[in-house]
């Protein structure tokens, strides 16, 4: 699979729920429709809940990848205006 380059990167390692979602939501609000946000996180529940929440907001989840035993990368494409 080819790598998709993100337009914005968000590092929320060390952040716990619900602030993982709060910070991700604010970050997606600040990019344009069609752009991609890449989130790196280490809070296990968020690797599941953030993709679900982003789909619920109407965005597309391009990738959820566990990059090492403790960290995940999630790519979200902004699909709708807030």
């Amino acid at each position: 699979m080819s790598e998709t380059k993100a337009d914005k990167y968000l590092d929320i390692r060390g952040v716990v729920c619900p602030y993982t979602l709060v910070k991700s939501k604010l970050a997606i609000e600040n990019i344009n429709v069609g752009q991609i946000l890449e989130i790196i996180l280490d809070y296990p529940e968020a690797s599941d809940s953030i993709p679900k929440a982003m789909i619920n907001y109407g965005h597309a989840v391009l990738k959820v990848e566990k990059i090492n035993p403790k960290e995940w990368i999630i790519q979200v494409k902004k699909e709708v205006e807030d």
Partner: protein
Amino acid sequence: MEFTEEQLKRYSRHIILPEVGGKGQQKISNSKVLIVGAGGLGCPVGYYLAAAGVGTLALVDNDVVELSNLQRQIAHSVKTLGINKADSAKQTFENLNPDVNVVAVKERINSKNILGLFKDYDIIVDGTDNFPTRYLINDACVMLKKPLVSGAILRFEGQVTTILPGEGPCYRCLFEEPPPAGLVPSCQEAGVLGVLPGIIGALQATEVLKLIIGKGKPLKGELLIYDALGVNFRKVRVPKNSDCPICGKNPTIKELSDIPEQYCSI
């Protein structure tokens, strides 16, 4: 807007709502709301708007806190007995949320000061307890084209409506003139269940927040009536009156008039 870490925590449940988000929370923080009356209705309205982070919250009241108020006026306490109600509520709301600029206006609203008081605010909330003031507030909001969220309570029943001048009916479209003095009893004469203003005030605060974030359907052109004993919410449609003396095609009320003294029994 860059939120501080404290604000991220405080407003997290708003920010994650799709209808609010960071942008909606920013609108709330930038908004200016004026509440007439820091009593039964003004206390819960102000409480929730302060919690929500409304940027500037003005409270207009020239009465002092009395023991008989504490059954329903939840922003006051035994520690503020004898203190002006706007000042008392200001202390409570500032303790709840230091982000909010709470302005205590220790005046009785009248035809001379009302336009000056209202002009700098985005939304007006009516939490008063008498008809002449209710009509004066309505007329001022129509003249200034300010959204007005109106509430009223008595015994076990309450009413709410949102008046958007130019878009929907006003209070005078519903009842052209106030009822004669003494016809409708006051809470002092007839009583009120203490929790009732909490429910009606919470509905008013909800309307205010919806207007600020621009989401949902405002309660315009409708009067919501809550009956606590029967547990009924019903909505009565209120048409705009083209002959309304203040918002009709040919308004006859061109300037504000003062409140006859005999009305103000509370």
